[in-house]
């Protein structure tokens, strides 16, 4: 008789997760996502290897998709950073979508009001007003949470839906409606984002914010207070940290960062330079939720989120070839993102546990 001895497995709590472990876990989860998605590709009669080849050559080819990849990647980076700041204080900002819409509204309102202003004045003004609008929207949720103890997850979600209709109100048949009726009027040329190395300059702004946030959260007194609050509100109270103030502040910072992405998105991509029809701006708005997953996977390390955001950008842009070039069914590209989000979630398990093999005998 031959006995096959199965290894006995046991899960063990991880007390502290190192950065290296987090990277390994994320890569493994991506591998699994690629394997699962291969199944869908084969179901549609495509060769996975060929398809993945197409996706990445398109996404990273400077002649084809690279600049869009980076543009979308840095858009997601804005969302991720907007999620990280409140999360460092223990707050779930699910409202990047709404804050992005508000940022859009703020920036466009300036551009439409002062179309003749010099770009050197107009563009910073658009960014500032966009950031302020987003910050106000974030601070609203922060105020409700910090002052009145209203659950921030539900409030930010509701605010997202409200902001969606706000943009709708302005564009579809509203005061900003363009000739196409369901899109807005195009931005004046003075508002277009200057392009540096083939990407809008706001991309560098995103990187700069990521670096500043890293230093801010790690080395500033305020950043320290935010981290204490995020790790334990009880401890924060015991050492005299004003939770209400910080709650409003972090939500406002998060909102401001998400607000900036409004300008980045529409003024930065030559394909837009207006607010498109509702389904299209909603599809972009839905991308902001990636910020949550990326932020958590990177353990709220804002510098680590840069490559991750760009990678997700490459999937977003690259997988459009599945539909456009390989003539695979519509929606397969978004499905790919969905599969990745699911494996990311499943692999969160390894952020808390480690599987150990128990030796027998």
């Amino acid at each position, binding site marked *: 008789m031959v006995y096959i001895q199965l290894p006995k497995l046991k899960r063990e709590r991880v*007390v*502290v997760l190192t950065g290296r472990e987090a990277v390994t876990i994320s890569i493994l989860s991506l591998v699994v996502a690629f394997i699962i998605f291969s199944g869908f590709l084969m179901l549609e009669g495509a060769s996975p290897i060929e398809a993945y080849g197409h996706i990445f050559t398109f996404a990273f080819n400077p002649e084809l998709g690279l600049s869009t990849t980076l543009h979308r990647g840095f858009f997601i980076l804005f969302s991720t950073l907007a999620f990280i700041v409140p999360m460092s204080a223990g707050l779930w900002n699910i409202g990047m979508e709404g804050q992005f819409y508000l940022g859009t509204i703020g920036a466009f309102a300036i551009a439409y009001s002062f179309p003749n202003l010099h770009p050197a004045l107009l563009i910073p003004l658009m960014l500032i007003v966009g950031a302020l609008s987003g910050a106000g929207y974030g601070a609203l949720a922060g105020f409700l949470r910090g002052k009145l103890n209203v659950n921030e997850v539900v409030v930010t979600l509701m605010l997202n839906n409200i902001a969606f209709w706000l943009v709708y109100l302005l564009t579809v048949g509203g005061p900003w409606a363009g000739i196409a009726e369901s899109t807005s009027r195009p931005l004046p040329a003075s508002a277009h984002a200057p392009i540096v190395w083939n990407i809008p300059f706001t991309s560098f702004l995103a990187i700069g914010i990521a670096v500043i946030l890293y230093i801010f959260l790690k080395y500033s007194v*305020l950043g*320290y*207070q935010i981290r204490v609050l995020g790790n*334990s509100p009880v*401890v924060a*109270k015991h*050492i*005299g940290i004003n939770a209400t103030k910080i709650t409003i502040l972090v939500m406002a910072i998060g909102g401001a960062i998400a607000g900036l992405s409004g300008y980045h998105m529409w003024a930065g991509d030559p394909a837009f330079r207006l607010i498109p029809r509702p389904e299209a701006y909603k599809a972009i708005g839905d991308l902001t939720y990636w910020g949550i997953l990326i932020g958590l996977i990177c353990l709220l390390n804002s510098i680590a989120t840069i490559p991750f955001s760009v990678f997700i950008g490459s999937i977003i842009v690259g997988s459009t070839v599945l539909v456009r070039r390989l003539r695979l069914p519509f929606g397969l590209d978004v499905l790919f993102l969905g599969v990745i989000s699911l494996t990311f979630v499943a692999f969160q398990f390894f952020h808390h546990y480690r599987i150990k093999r128990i030796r027998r005998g």
Partner: protein
Amino acid sequence: MKNGTPILEVRGITKRFPGGVVALDHVDFEVRAGEVHAILGENGAGKTTLMNILFGVLQPDEGEIYVYGKRVKFRSPLDAMNLGIGMVHQIRKLIPAHTVLENIILGHPKTGTIINMKKAREEVKALCERYGFKIDLDARVWQLSAGEQQLVEILRALYRGAKILILDEPTSVLTPLEIDSFLNSMKSMAKEGIATIPFVTHKLPEVFAISDRITVLRRGKVVKRLETREATMKALAEYMVGREVLFTLEKPKVKIGEEILRVENVSALNDKGVLALKGVSFSIREGEIFGIAGVAGNGQQELAEVIAGLRKPIGGRIFFKGRDITNTSVLERMKMGIGYIPPERLGVGVIGNFSLVDNILMGIYFDPEFSNKGFLNYKKIRDYAKKYISEFEVVAPSIDTKAAHLSGGNLQRLILARVIPRTSKLLIANSPTVGLDIAATEAVRSRILACKEKGMGVLLISEDLDEVLQLSDRVAPIYEGRFVKILSAEEAKKEVVGAMMAGALSGGV
């Protein structure tokens, strides 16, 4: 089952944990029907492991358990319950939002698909009458006192037909009055042939009052089995610790100085919005330790929080060196030199996910000396942390170790290293030694005395009556949100304070 016949036998139980720790090493003992068989041991002697094995939570690596002479194996608590073993937990495993009755009948097969509340009520009532228990079955558990909650756990076990009852530290949170009624219920259960196995660490006197036989555990081994009438307190303590116990600290002679803190008629609500502190007044002077003795939940927690600035009082005023600080924030009070040691460590006094440096930083982050234009000066902070971590003898591989890796005693040392160096005037120590081993307890107590020596005022709150009496210059027993009386060290005899904190004696004595 006739009283005196063996009902539970444990033979050669051994349990090893990963990392080679032997929690139990060939433990055996036997329990007879209707007897009270106490199991004694210090923290870490293996009591919890043994208890978990008897109740089916853990499985032993070696050894056998016999119930009514039949060998049994428990895969889960359910198996243990079905064989008539019940458990009364120290940390109550009850559902606070549900009624007493719901808690008792939960999960019992007899309860049926659709609950017949009337029938269930009659059955539980009958049970109460049989054992002489008094409890309101419709009360919500969160409204009950610690003693009543314990009764619910006992009733739950009896309702399931338990013949053997394991009790985890049964008297540790009870008032002296509740202890009396608890002892009575033990007697009535013994009469009905129910064997009870209390597991005890402190509170040796109660062991004498209730038990028939005693088994002493030390480091996972049975070191002594004896009949209670053969035992003495001193001998038991020696068996438990393994050496002679000397619990005397020299109280330094310090000149009592000016008044630091004056509390006038302060009242406060607890978290549930119920008035928990009802008009307390006292003062503390330089070099004085003011002790508050009381059973948890009598308002002392709220009092400590009000003085530390964590809780807003609803009435009364607080003066610090003559200045009204009733409405100042925690941070301002910290800056004035008021330090607070909370009763819990991880998640209240310490962040496990932070390094030791970042934990020490919690005491100084607001000090401009350690930052520059809003940014932290980590070089200075690390030097500061290093100094006090070594001074307070926190044992850790490095100052960058995460606090989660530290033991309880080291965590408390870390909290002291954060709080005490920045405390210049008033230290509030809330249950500072709870759950600590003997060495750490001694270290903490001598630190508190050192604060007194430096001329600080100390407010010491503890459930450990001996600790309060040993360290304090004045003692206030607290009962239901009021000081019964403020006693000088000479007046504060253990019996008197004990009776006062149980509400049995008013201040007029």
